[in-house]
């Protein structure tokens, strides 16, 4: 699902409510028929969230960052993590400290984390920001591939998405 709308309409807030980081003022967020508040761990195991911030430690390499973040979710080998970095076009950054990476490279590493976690539901907040044309195409391809595998993605983006007929659009009004 593609969520769009002018600045300040609450797109990121909606995404944070869906992650469970914020409690909804009204209503209930459910996943697989259960409220996410009642089974937060099950829900979080099915969830990969990429926020505005790439959640990288500057003093660790991209691979070390990935090993830690993915390692909290599942046991992953270095080959798997390198493959995820390769898939997002960040293989060359694997052994570089995150502080020397450009904003676009950081975004690619963050997407590699989402990919490597292997979750069914992707929640992405402005994932196209700072990506070049090739990076945007790569991300769209990843979204299509994820949907083809039966995965779901909620994407907040100003960028026009062209990821196939399955996509739904939610335009938020101010």
């Amino acid at each position, binding site marked *: 699902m593609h969520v769009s709308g002018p600045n300040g309409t609450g797109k990121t807030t909606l995404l944070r409510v869906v*992650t469970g980081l914020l409690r909804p003022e009204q209503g209930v967020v459910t996943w697989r028929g259960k409220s996410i508040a009642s089974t937060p761990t099950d829900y*979080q195991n099915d969830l990969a969230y990429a926020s505005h911030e790439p959640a990288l*430690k500057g003093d660790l390499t991209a691979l070390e960052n990935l090993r830690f973040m993915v390692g*909290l979710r599942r046991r992953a080998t270095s080959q798997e993590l390198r493959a995820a970095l390769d898939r997002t076009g960040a293989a060359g950054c694997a052994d570089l400290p995150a502080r020397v990476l450009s904003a676009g490279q950081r975004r690619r590493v963050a997407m590699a984390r989402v990919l490597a976690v292997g979750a069914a539901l992707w929640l992405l907040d402005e994932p196209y920001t700072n990506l070049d044309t090739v990076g945007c195409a790569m991300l769209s391809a990843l979204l299509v591939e994820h949907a083809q595998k039966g995965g779901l993605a909620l994407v907040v983006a100003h960028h026009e998405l062209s990821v196939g007929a399955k996509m739904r659009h939610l335009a938020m009004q101010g």
Partner: protein
Amino acid sequence: MSVGAWSAFVLVLRRELCLSFRRPDQLIQPLMFFLIVTTLFPLGLSVQLSLLREMAPGVLWVAALLASLLSLDALFKSDAEDGTLEQLVLSGQGLYVIVLAKTLAHWLVSGAALVLVSPVVGTALAVPLSAFPTMMSSLGLGTLALSWLGAIGAGLTVGLKRGNVLISLIVLPLAMPLLIFGAGATDRAISGTSPVGALYLLAALCVLTCTLAPFAAAAALRITLE
């Protein structure tokens, strides 16, 4: 294959220690503060060994408390600023486990390091050699308990730009029993009486804070993220 709580604890602990050793300034600053502050007393007071020995427990403990507080502000702040905290909350691991590992790592690079250099300071303050074991064990227990208390303060102030002063205001009143029993134990060891009672109380406070404070700090972090 999902990851168990113990594996997550070890992973967070290793990462925190790795980050601390790659930024040695964070490691060295509290130590230098501790050494400098405690060295000022023998320089500023008259060179009477009996006077220094009498003041040693208080000086040691106040300096150790303040040095431990110096680095507490950074416990969760950098994670909150770079988005890591949100990822940790959504990792499917209990936030309690993550807070426990982060706080223990903080103690290992601040409190435990203070304990290791305390014999140098003890010698400068004319603490007898026989009181060193008590001085070191009381400082170890006290700084560990202070780290648990500090985690609550750090959790509550993580969203504030300059939370350092507020952490001190939250934590120092709670740390008074630690100061009383810790300095008391060292004082007893210096004067040749048994420090066991004060050490037991210090250990009990350490267990109490270790058991409850991570829950409180985790709750504080969740509130701050909302």
